[in-house]
């Protein structure tokens, strides 16, 4: 391989899009109208939930399953933690982002992640928390039956990375059932949220440290 690391060193703006999706979990989201969503959004302070992630690829006979838990506290604190198959923790707090991966029992910081891009996207979270889907310049947002919020990229560059995102709202106000991120034909990620809870106190240290 000739100079592949030069490529790896470059920024990975796609990671920012992932954070954008995570922020959707904090959408205070059940409603059939934008006004209803915005109204519920104002009541959201924290969200925490287990999740099961299915990665579907044409190359795979069965999806690659990841499991974990996330914590969100308004306005901009997030801990997104995978327990398997690769133990990793993404921390975001007050505009700073870090990712750690556990290898051989040791926590190793990911220095290649484009954390600056994450910080840019975090600034969007407040908008999402308030149900201001149309305030995000990167996506068109439409409210579909289900209820479902459908996000489609405005720019071709982003569409190359993400075709669309489906946010399936729960019957319980303020919660989501699942998120489907369509990257392309035969390639999508399904996030199912399990046992979510709203507005329970979350220790601030969870967003500051991986311990």
């Amino acid at each position, binding site marked *: *391989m*000739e*100079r*592949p*690391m*030069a*490529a*790896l*060193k*470059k920024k*990975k703006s*796609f*990671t920012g*899009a*992932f954070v954008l999706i995570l922020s959707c979990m904090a959408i205070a989201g059940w409603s059939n109208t934008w006004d209803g969503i915005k109204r519920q959004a104002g009541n959201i302070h924290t969200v925490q939930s287990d999740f099961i*992630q299915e*990665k579907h*690829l044409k*190359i*795979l*006979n069965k999806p*690659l399953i*990841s499991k974990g838990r996330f914590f969100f506290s308004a306005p901009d604190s997030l801990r*997104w933690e*995978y327990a398997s*198959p*690769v133990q*990793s923790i*993404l921390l975001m707090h007050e505009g700073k982002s870090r*990712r750690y*991966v556990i*290898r051989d029992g040791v926590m*190793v*910081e*990911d*220095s*290649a*992640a484009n954390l600056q891009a994450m910080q840019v996207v975090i600034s969007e979270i407040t908008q999402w928390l308030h149900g201001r889907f149309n305030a995000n310049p990167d996506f068109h947002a439409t409210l579909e039956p289900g209820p479902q919020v459908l996000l489609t990229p405005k720019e071709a560059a982003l569409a*190359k*990375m993400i075709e669309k995102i489906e946010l399936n709202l729960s019957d319980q106000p303020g919660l989501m059932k699942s998120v489907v991120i369509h*990257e*392309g034909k035969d*390639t999508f*990620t399904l996030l199912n949220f399990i046992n979510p809870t709203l507005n329970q106190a979350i220790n601030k240290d969870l967003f500051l440290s991986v311990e």
Partner: protein
Amino acid sequence: MKNLLVVSSLFLSMVSCGSLPEPAVVDDYDQTRCSRPYIDGTWRFVHAIQAEMRPGKKGFFMGVTRISPEKKSIRCVMMTIEGFVLLDATTAKNALTIHRGVSPFDSRHFVQGLMEDIKLAFFKPPGQPLKAGTFEDGLFVCRYKSPDGRITDIVTGDNSAWEIRRYNKNKTLSRSIKASKPEKLSGQGGTWLPGRIEIKAHGMHEYLLTLDLIESELIAEQP
């Protein structure tokens, strides 16, 4: 004199670390040792990948590969830890197709290099060894020479671990691939698979990729 010592030390260091060592040749040997690193059939692997660009700076990825040594084909998908696809590419009979690539992973130069590393790890060099023998440290080597003059050493010890070393035409070490943490798979012909593979690039643009096996599957269909 001091400068001479420094230069001499540097030279010896370069020779010991990067030049082509000569084995004590043996004529009668177990030829299966030359095949130890290589799999039969078409396999699908899922790896956790650690990429070290420079000391202490590490990035993490997930990799899914479908490899058929018989057909000389590889399909490779690289993702972020969160599952975003950065690269989906196929190489078959030296034809490279990039199905999906997110910049900078859409660079053909990058993808060709990646595929070359995978080929080196999983495709046995064609033909018969140029020679075989033992190094001073007791390790056994099967040495192959490609038509373009590059040398590939397949180095094995008494256990199931192995190392592949690739030397340039000028006999300097350019790649080393080291397997460790062997996992014997029951129900799949008792195949030994390395739980960890380390791919190291030597020279001007050094890097280290560490691949930890998450899933493996012997599949019937061809890529």
